[in-house]
């Protein structure tokens, strides 16, 4: 798959309370959750971002709670995918299970500024930056996880089995 979009940068240890504060967890409606996406990290985020944009995080993105509302809020906001130096493990699992594309790159976050447009070619495992010759490799995804994505998430994978 190919994703092209403008990046919004966030730092290390972006926790699930920052992605979707617990005060909004009295619903699991994707549209309502999306309205508060990243609110406690950047209150204006949903006003500024456009559909197809990309979140670029640092280390340990999505740490904290197991709430699947976090990847749901991101996906429903229109963000196409998340790139980070590393992901917290429950967030990583949840993203694959519910179908939010996520990619690991140790270098990208430090190499580019917010607002840059990038293209992620998940098949070739390469990220390119608009107006630059720079290329960044995506950390490979385990074959099992690739299968999960190909099947359309965990529940569809199970149904197939």
């Amino acid at each position: 798959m190919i994703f092209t979009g403008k990046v919004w940068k966030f730092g290390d240890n972006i926790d699930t309370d920052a992605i979707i504060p617990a005060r909004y967890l009295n619903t699991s409606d994707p549209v309502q959750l999306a309205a508060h996406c990243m609110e406690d990290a950047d209150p204006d985020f949903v006003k500024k971002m456009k559909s197809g944009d990309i979140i670029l995080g640092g280390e340990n993105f999505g740490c904290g709670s197991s709430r699947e509302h976090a990847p749901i809020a991101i996906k429903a906001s229109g963000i196409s995918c998340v790139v980070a130096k590393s992901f917290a493990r429950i967030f990583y699992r949840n993203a694959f299970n519910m179908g939010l594309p996520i990619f690991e790159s140790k270098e990208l976050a430090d190499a580019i500024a917010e607002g840059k447009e990038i293209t992620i070619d998940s098949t070739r495992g390469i990220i390119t930056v608009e107006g630059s010759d720079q290329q960044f490799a995506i950390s490979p995804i385990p074959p099992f996880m690739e299968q999960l994505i190909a099947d359309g998430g965990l529940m569809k994978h199970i149904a197939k089995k």
Partner: protein
Amino acid sequence: MGNTITEKILMAHAGLSEISAGQLINARVDIALGNDITAPIAIREFRAAGGQKVFDRDKVALVLDHFTPNKDISSAQQCKTVREFAAEHGITHFYEGGQVGVEHALLPEQGIVLPGDLVIGADSHTCTYGALGAFATGVGSTDLAAAMLTGELWFKVPSSIKFVVYGKMPKWVSGKDLILNIIGRIGVDGALYQAMEFTGETILNLPMADRLSMANMAIEAGAKNGIFAPDAITEEYVKPRARRPYKFYASDADAVYSQVIEIDAGKLEPQVAFPHLPSNVKGISQAGNVKIDQSLIGSCTNGRIEDLRIAAGILKNRKASSGVRLIVVPATPFIYRQALQEGLLEIFLNADAVISPPSCGACLGGHLGILAEGERSIATTNRNFVGRMGHPKSEVYLASPAVAAASAVLGRIASPEEL
């Protein structure tokens, strides 16, 4: 080459005769847990996948503990969804109303989770049950849906970090201080994807309540699970509660660890995690003059009877400082009743405390103790992220019940030694 306790439990549940870190396995689940926030999504996924019946009605636990007593109409709707699902499937371990407690205090107390179990929960603090010598890990709602449907789930076998703790813990130092100190040392991703195995002479004598507090916070270092080898203390805790067989596992002497970290508990003082990460830890002597607006004693980390006894010991014949809202949350109805019978509630009331029903509400900024802009709370909970307990510009300081009680009396972050 030997195996760790974590590997052995996973191996047994995957039906394998060997296993190694990094391997992807499919394993049988003994208990699958959800709450009023995470279960509704799992139920939606379960139904969307055509689920007709849960794999085993005795092995699913549904606990309405987060936004309960129902805080608003939306929360009430979520609870209703779970309640109806529990009735439809005849879920044995369904808890609400006057029977509900904070899930990670309730499940061990009721003997629902046992040593040697493989437990998954759609709640990150599911790792608490590692205190009993179970493999327990937090997952998302879709994982819970899959486990409720099939009784199995996929796992990546984690490597293990071994913590060897020695020395006698000084007065006022508890399991909470030990785990805060460890998270301060290794960071919030210091054990990312790994198991944290707690061993050493200090651990051998550590009471179950302290072990539960420690395992509870393994996730705050990014760990998949925290685990203690079961022993005589485990047996004493589990035996009167268990209604099915359980098994003690132990790591082999030649088990492989990614890291071994030694800690001298004799040198510790009470610890405080400053905003906004659980790893931002200082010794109480370095805390400085931090005035507080609220002191919260409770949660799945520190809402057990042992925690309430420590707090009551400090609060007896004292009062919360004027301007400090002291909130005490007995974690389960059983603990609530114990506290009543032991006279602890009388002490809390005399100290001007608010006694909350068992609920996760205040810890995660849901209800029953929200902070306004600029306010500070000391809390015996497990997270102090931005906005965790209320306004994005409020602050949470994590500490033990002893420090939270002393701070309530003095109106600032303080050691019990100062009283």
